[in-house]
């Protein structure tokens, strides 16, 4: 009798991505990070730990440096001092291709929306599933259909970003951020231009994994609409380069 054929493991890419960090470690830690690019305030370094399953929002003015936190969390840039750990791994120190793999564990919504202008909203949402996962085409289609329904994008699925309103773009960008069902989502200014109801609805969807469990969400904003505060566990005000806890 022939031995059973060895089946190729399914989410190979995701498995490789998981190999860089530890599930036991907090999803995101900013350790002694200098927000103001001035190394003369060692006593006022930014410290923050985002625990698994929590929604943490950092608020700050444009010149507070809060806008850098998202890029540092993704390893797109390195902080001038201190380090950022994602699932225990120092993300800024990883080589480029390891970093690309590792980022598949993290959902990201950049300032604006970062949608590719020459793709439809549906193709934008499908992008990480097609190029950053090992799913079959049918599985990609199934997941994208589910996301289009969840984020109420069905009616505008075939349109390009320039053809739809800001809210639909934001919905598509957030759907894309959670397409790979990551344990951590980093959002930069995700509520700009949204009504408080839409912001609440979207944050609620983003903070839940496909199996219904809560995922860690870290958002950076300049202003926080009151309706969103219900879903947020921690609000951090960034002032003078340091984190000041606020009541959600």
């Amino acid at each position, binding site marked *: 009798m022939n031995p059973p054929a060895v089946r190729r493991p399914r989410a190979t890419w995701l498995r490789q991505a998981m190999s860089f960090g530890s599930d036991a470690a907090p999803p995101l830690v900013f350790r002694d990070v200098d927000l103001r690019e001035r190394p003369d305030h060692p006593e006022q370094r930014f410290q923050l730990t985002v625990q698994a399953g929590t929604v943490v929002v950092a608020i700050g003015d444009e010149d507070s440096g809060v806008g850098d936190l998202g890029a540092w969390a993704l390893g797109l840039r390195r902080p001038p001092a201190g380090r950022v750990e994602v699932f225990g791994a120092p993300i800024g120190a990883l080589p480029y291709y390891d970093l690309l793999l590792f980022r598949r564990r993290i959902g990201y919504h950049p300032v604006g929306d*970062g949608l590719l202008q020459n793709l439809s909203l549906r193709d934008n949402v499908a992008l990480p599933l097609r190029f950053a996962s090992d799913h079959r085409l049918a599985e990609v289609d199934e997941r994208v259909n589910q996301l289009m329904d969840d984020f109420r994008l069905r009616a505008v699925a075939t349109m390009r970003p320039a053809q739809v309103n800001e809210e639909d773009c934001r919905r598509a960008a957030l759907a894309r951020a959670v397409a790979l069902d990551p344990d951590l989502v980093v959002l930069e200014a995700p509520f700009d231009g949204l009504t408080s109801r839409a912001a609440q609805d979207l944050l609620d969807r983003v903070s839940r994994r496909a199996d219904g469990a809560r995922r860690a969400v870290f958002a950076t904003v300049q202003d926080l609409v009151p309706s969103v505060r219900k879903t947020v566990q921690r609000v951090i005000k960034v002032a003078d380069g340091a984190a000041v806890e606020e009541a959600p």
Partner: protein
Amino acid sequence: MTAVVAAIGRSGARRLSVLGGLARFALGAFRAAGRLTRAGRWVTLRVLINQIRFTALQASGLVTFLAAILSFLVISQTIRQLGRVGATDLIGTVIVVAVIRELGPLLTALIVVSRSGTAIAAEMATNRVMGEVTALEAMGIDPYIYLVLPRMLGAVVSVAALMILFDAVALISGYLAAALSGMHFPRYSNIVLTTLSAKDVWLTLAKGLVFGAAVAIFPSYHGLAVKAGPTEIPQAVTRGVVATIVAIFISSAIFVVIAA
């Protein structure tokens, strides 16, 4: 004096650095093929087919027109001059060496650079300026795989196919010019086939590969190197196209040396 030497050294170092960057970029683009995901392969194939439609199919009319005109002009002028010294048999050498081996690949590559090289450089630069490249990297998608690889494969296939088209049209048009000077088809075909060798076929294919890769890699490299903003896009397009043309001419000269 030392300032002049320093300036020359700086300029040389800058050029060497660009060459190094280009070599790394080209290697990255080739290696990207091995990292394509299962679904990504299908999407890349779709993009590749689109790329071939834009690069090859839409340029085929222009290539046909230019090949017909060029070959007709070259052969009708040459046959007249050669007829005076009774050496019309040499038109085989002219059409194979001058038109098919050298001018055909060069002109085809230049047509593709002017149509698609500019488009590739502008598209890449826009992707960079709009933050789309960063968005891809943030999703864990290798920009080489998504942006460069399909364009490179598309350009290679398209340039090679257009070169074959150019050669075929040039041979037919060359015959029309020869026929107007009184040469019959059996003699024309005999002269051309005697001169044409297997080397010409592999040289055409090799040039298709090299020129095609250059048409995609140089504009992509300069397009993705944009940093400051939209005002850099036209400069990147110019740099990409000029670099491609220079690379095509240099590699054409290298092919002459290799073939000799």
